[in-house]
C-alpha cells in the first residue's frame, strides 16, 4: 500500500520535472538568444549557451528604438482598462448580486453572451467611428475599445466574488445608517479587495497582450504598444533576433512579475469568479 503511493509520488515528480522543462525551455531560449550577438543567433547549427554573452541587444532596443515609448503606452492603456472595467464591473456585480429586478437574468445572459463576440467584428466600426470623435490614436479611444473585451468578464468575476460575501454585512451597514452606495464602498469593497486585484490583473494581462486593437486603432509610433512594436520588428526584411528576443523579454516582464507577486490572487480569482459553484 505504502509502496504503491510512493511509486505514485515518484511518477508525479518525474512528470512535473518534464513539465517544468517544457514550460521553461522557450523562456530560456528567448533569454539566451537575447544575450547573443546577431551573428551568433544566425549560426548554423545554432549554439545553445551564448558564446560571448552581451547586453548589446537590450541596449539597442531600449536606447535606439521607440521601445520605452511603447512600454509607457502599454502601461497606461492596460492600467486604464483595468481600473475602468474593475470599477464599473464591481458596481454592476454588486447590483446583480444583491438585487432582484426585472430583466436581471436577461441582462446577465447578454453580458455573458457578449463575451462571445469576436474582436474582429468590432474593430471595423471602431476604426470608422473613433476618428469621427477625435479618439483615433488616443489613450481614451484605446481604453474604451479594450473595455469592450474586459468589462463583461470583470462584471461576471466580481459578481461571483460578491456572491460569496454574506448579505448580513450589507444589512448591518444599512442599519448603521450607511446608504446603499456607502455599504458597497465601505463594507463590500474592502472585503472583496482580493477579487478586485484578481480582476484587475486579468484585465491588465488581456490589454497588455492585445495586438488586434492597437493594430487597427493607432498609426505611427505615438500610441504603439509593446506587442505592436514587436510585431513591426518581425515584419522587417531582415529580422534581428537578439533584439526581437530582448524586446520580447522586456515585454513579457510586467505580466510575469505581476503574476509572480500576485499569483495567489490570480489563481483564486480565476477559479472563484469564472468557475463559481
Amino acid at each position, binding site marked *: 500500500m505504502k509502496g504503491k503511493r510512493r511509486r505514485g509520488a515518484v511518477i508525479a515528480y518525474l512528470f512535473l520535472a518534464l513539465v517544468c522543462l517544457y*514550460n521553461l525551455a522557450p523562456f530560456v531560449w528567448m533569454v539566451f538568444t537575447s544575450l547573443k550577438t546577431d551573428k551568433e543567433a544566425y549560426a548554423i547549427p545554432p549554439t545553445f549557451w551564448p558564446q560571448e554573452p552581451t547586453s548589446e541587444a537590450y541596449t539597442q532596443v531600449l536606447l535606439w528604438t521607440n521601445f520605452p515609448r511603447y512600454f509607457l503606452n502599454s502601461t497606461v492603456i492596460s492600467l486604464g482598462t483595468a481600473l475602468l472595467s474593475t470599477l464599473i464591473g464591481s458596481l454592476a456585480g454588486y447590483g446583480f448580486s444583491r438585487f*432582484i429586478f426585472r430583466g436581471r437574468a436577461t441582462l446577465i445572459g447578454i453580458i455573458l453572451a457578449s463575451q462571445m463576440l469576436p474582436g474582429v467584428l468590432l474593430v*471595423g466600426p471602431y*476604426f470608422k467611428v473613433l476618428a469621427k470623435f477625435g479618439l483615433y490614436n488616443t489613450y481614451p479611444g484605446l481604453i474604451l475599445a479594450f473595455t469592450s473585451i474586459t468589462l463583461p468578464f470583470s462584471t461576471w468575476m466580481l459578481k461571483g466574488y460578491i456572491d460569496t460575501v454574506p448579505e448580513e454585512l450589507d444589512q448591518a451597514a444599512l442599519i448603521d445608517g450607511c446608504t446603499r452606495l456607502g455599504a458597497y464602498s465601505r463594507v463590500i469593497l474592502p472585503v472583496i479587495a482580493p477579487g478586485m486585484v484578481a480582476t484587475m490583473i486579468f484585465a491588465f494581462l488581456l490589454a497588455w497582450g492585445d495586438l488586434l486593437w492597437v493594430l487597427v486603432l493607432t498609426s505611427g509610433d505615438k500610441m504603439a504598444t509593446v506587442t505592436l512594436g514587436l510585431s513591426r520588428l*518581425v515584419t522587417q526584411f531582415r529580422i534581428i533576433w537578439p533584439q526581437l528576443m530582448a524586446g520580447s523579454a522586456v515585454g513579457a516582464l510586467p505580466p510575469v512579475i505581476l503574476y509572480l507577486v500576485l499569483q495567489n490572487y490570480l489563481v483564486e480569482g480565476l477559479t472563484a469568479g469564472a468557475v463559481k459553484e
Partner: protein
Amino acid sequence: MNKRRARFLVFKAPSRQELEGYAFVLPCVLMLLLVLGFPVTIAVLNSFTPLWSEAKTFTLENYVKLARDDLFWNALSITLRFVGSTVLLHLIVGLAVAVALNAQIKGHRFFRVIAILPWTVPDVISGLIWRFMYNPTSGIINDLVRSSGVTRSYIEWLAHPRLALPSVIFSDVWRGYPFVMIILLAGLQAIPRELYEAARVDGATAFQEFRHITIPLLKRMIIISVALDTIWQFRRFGLVYNMTFGGPGHVTEILSLYVYKQYFRYFNFEYASAVAVVMAVIMLIISFPYVRMIVRRV
C-alpha cells in the same frame, strides 16, 4: 403561467429595491451599449447596407459572396481544426498536469508557479519565441531533430503547407494549457479525499479511481474550462499573426485573420463585416449551451 404573462402585460412601477438594483448596473449597461452594442449594430448594418458609400441600398450580396468564397470556407475549416485541436490538447495536458499537482507532493506550490507561467505571456510574444525556435537553420527545434538522427534536412516547420498548422497548434498548447489546468486543479481540490481512501479500501486501481471518481466529479469544471477555452481560442489572433500571418498560402488563415485582411488589406469593409457577423453567430451558437447552463443558476 397566467400570472407570469400578466407581469409582462401590466406595467408595475418598479419597487425601491428594483430601482437601486438598476442604479448599480446602469453604468455597466450604458458602457456596454457604447463600446459593444453600438459597434455591433454598425457592423451588422454595414454587412447589409454599405454605410460609407454613395449607394445605400439593402443587399444580401455580401452573404451570397461569402457562401461562394472558397477562402471563407477555407478559413472556417482552418479555424475549426485550430480550435478543436488546441482545446482538446489543452484539456489533455491540463488535466494531466492538474492531476500531478493535486498529488500533494512536496514542492507542489513551486511546480504550480512554473506550470502557469507560459499563460501569463502575451500570445504575440509566445508566437515570436516559437517562430525563432522553429527557424529551419538556426532554431533549436530543428537542431534537436537533426541531432537525434531522425533526419538530416532543414525542416521548414512554418513554411511547409502540411506542417505549418500543426506547428502553430503545437506552440499554442504550450501557451494555452495552463488556463485549463488552473480551473481543473480547483475542481480536483474540491473533491473530498475520503472518496479516494474509500475506493482504495475497496481495492480500486488508480485508473478506476480516475474513471469513476475524478472524471464524474470534475465534469462541470471540464465543461466550463472547455467552454471558456473555446471562446478564447476562437478569437486567437496575435499568435498566428506573428508566426505565419496565415501562410504559407492560406493554410493557417484562421477566421479572425481572414476578417482582418478583408478589412485592412483589401478594404472590403462590407464584406469583412459579413464574415465577422457569421463568425459571431457561430460562436454564439457554440456557446449557447454554456451560457444557458450558467444563467439557469443565477
